[in-house]
């Protein structure tokens, strides 16, 4: 059984190499995350991207992460993926994590389509046999036919997207992490792609999707969390969380009177709790 459990997770980014004046300006302002200086007068500036995040994602959950720019969506995904290690709290994950933040890790424009299928496939964790087995499917889906024998440099942007997408969605993930940029080319291809993403989601035990698009979240997720300044401020069924989000953006201020009550355990798919 796949599962993700986060307890009081805190994540911070150090900012390196900025000029003192620029730094002063940054500290004076709040853009998305919470900026702070480490030990007063110190020269380290950090962005606190996640604050005290506790969350349990169960087998079968299709979790959407919503929130405005810089609320910590991508950071949270990368904490799930183990790329950013939290400076506080604990993360425990059961099951193999497949992050799909960009469709084509290791894509090389000088290599042919076929060579890229193997390289990207290996980097996405597929074995040679698996790649071999999935090749016809990738070939068919990318609709690149003879172009696959040509260097990727000769492809149009749309063709590159299709190739990357076809490879990335060929994996058999357990815990699937999706970032919103998983683009899908032209409109006709987009419809095609949606079906393929749905198939991919169906064979994953847990899906986590970070996106700005309410439609996408609605279509894919059965549960959502709303992030604001690195905190989870709502957790529950998709519709209710999206409702809270639109109410919040209407009142135009992030420190909306949020009822502080509510449990930290969103296990029950009960009404959305404001955490």
């Amino acid at each position, binding site marked *: 059984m796949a599962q993700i459990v986060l307890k009081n997770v805190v994540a911070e980014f150090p900012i*390196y190499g900025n000029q003192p004046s620029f730094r002063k300006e940054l500290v004076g302002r709040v853009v998305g995350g919470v900026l702070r200086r480490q030990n007063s007068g110190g020269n380290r500036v950090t962005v606190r991207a996640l604050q005290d995040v506790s969350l349990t994602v169960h087998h079968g959950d299709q979790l959407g992460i919503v929130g405005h720019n810089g609320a910590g969506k991508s950071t949270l995904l990368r904490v799930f993926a*183990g*790329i*950013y290690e939290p400076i506080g709290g604990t993360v425990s994950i059961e099951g*193999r994590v497949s992050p799909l933040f960009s469709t084509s890790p290791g894509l*090389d424009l000088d290599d042919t389509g076929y060579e890229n299928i193997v390289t990207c496939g*290996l*980097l996405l964790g597929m074995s040679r046999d698996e790649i071999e087995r999935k090749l016809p499917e990738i070939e068919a889906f990318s609709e690149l036919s003879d172009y696959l024998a040509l260097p990727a440099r000769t492809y149009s942007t749309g063709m590159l997207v299709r190739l990357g997408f076809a490879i990335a969605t060929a994996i058999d993930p357990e815990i699937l992490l999706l970032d919103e940029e998983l683009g899908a080319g032209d409109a006709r291809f987009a419809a095609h792609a949606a079906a393929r993403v749905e198939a991919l989601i169906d064979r994953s035990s847990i899906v986590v999707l970070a996106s700005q698009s309410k439609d996408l979240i609605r279509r894919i997720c059965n549960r959502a969390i709303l992030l604001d300044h690195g905190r989870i401020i709502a957790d529950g069924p998709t519709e209710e969380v999206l409702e809270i989000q639109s109410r919040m953006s209407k009142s135009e201020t992030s420190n909306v009177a949020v009822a502080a009550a509510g449990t930290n355990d969103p296990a029950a798919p009960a009404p959305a709790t404001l955490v």
Partner: protein
Amino acid sequence: MQDTTALNIPRSSSALSRSRIAWVDVIAGMLAVDIWGRLGWRETRRRYRRTVFGPFWTTVGLALFVTTLGLVWSNLWNRDPKVYLPYLTSGMICWVCFSTICTDACVTFVAAEKLLRQLRISYTLLACANVWRNVVYLFHNLSIYVLICFYGGVGVTWATPLVIPGFALFFLNAIWITMLLGALCARYRDIQQLVSTLMQIALFLTPIFWSPDQLTGRTMILAKLNPVYHLIEIVREPLLGKVPGQSHWLFVILMTIVGWILTLQMLTRFRSRIVYWI
């Protein structure tokens, strides 16, 4: 899915300390031959693309360099070109390999930013890919040496197979150097410039154009403290058909152990931080 630990390094937990993760990074990374082999080879393929000779152009340049320099300097220093040329060529080939590895090392992690932001990939795997690429170039360059051997009459002796442990140690050191420089250059971007400057000077301070027995007294001792000298010597001597002295082996083995201890320490303390630096 295959069990690719190198692409999905386990996380720290109470059961798995940071030092264990450092070990997993190193071992799983080295074992993922399929992946780093492919990543390293791809660079070679790229250099061959649309050219007839590809990386052999570097080889041609190097061949011109050693033959002209070798002939002039053997005259200048009154040395037999049939002895001096093989010495210079073998040393120069090792030096080019070493210095390219060092300069490449500085961008190993910075250039892999996209991968590192998506996967919990082994850093050792990335270092191996970089070193492997230079191994391929080294074999290109060794073709000059074969020709020079015919000219100089350097034959295969029973000491020649020692190139195998020699190269093994050479590249084992190259990997840790790549890891340390890669991490250091990711954090402090000035190091990269420093390394390329140092490499230019180090070429003249290392016995490649000259041999250490041409020096006397204190200068000779200083030359013998140069780690690059020993690293090159354990490969150059077998290439010349001679057995490298015991002190060279000892020095290099010591250097390998110390280097890897440092690298494991670095990974233990900073593995989770590197991604913030790039």
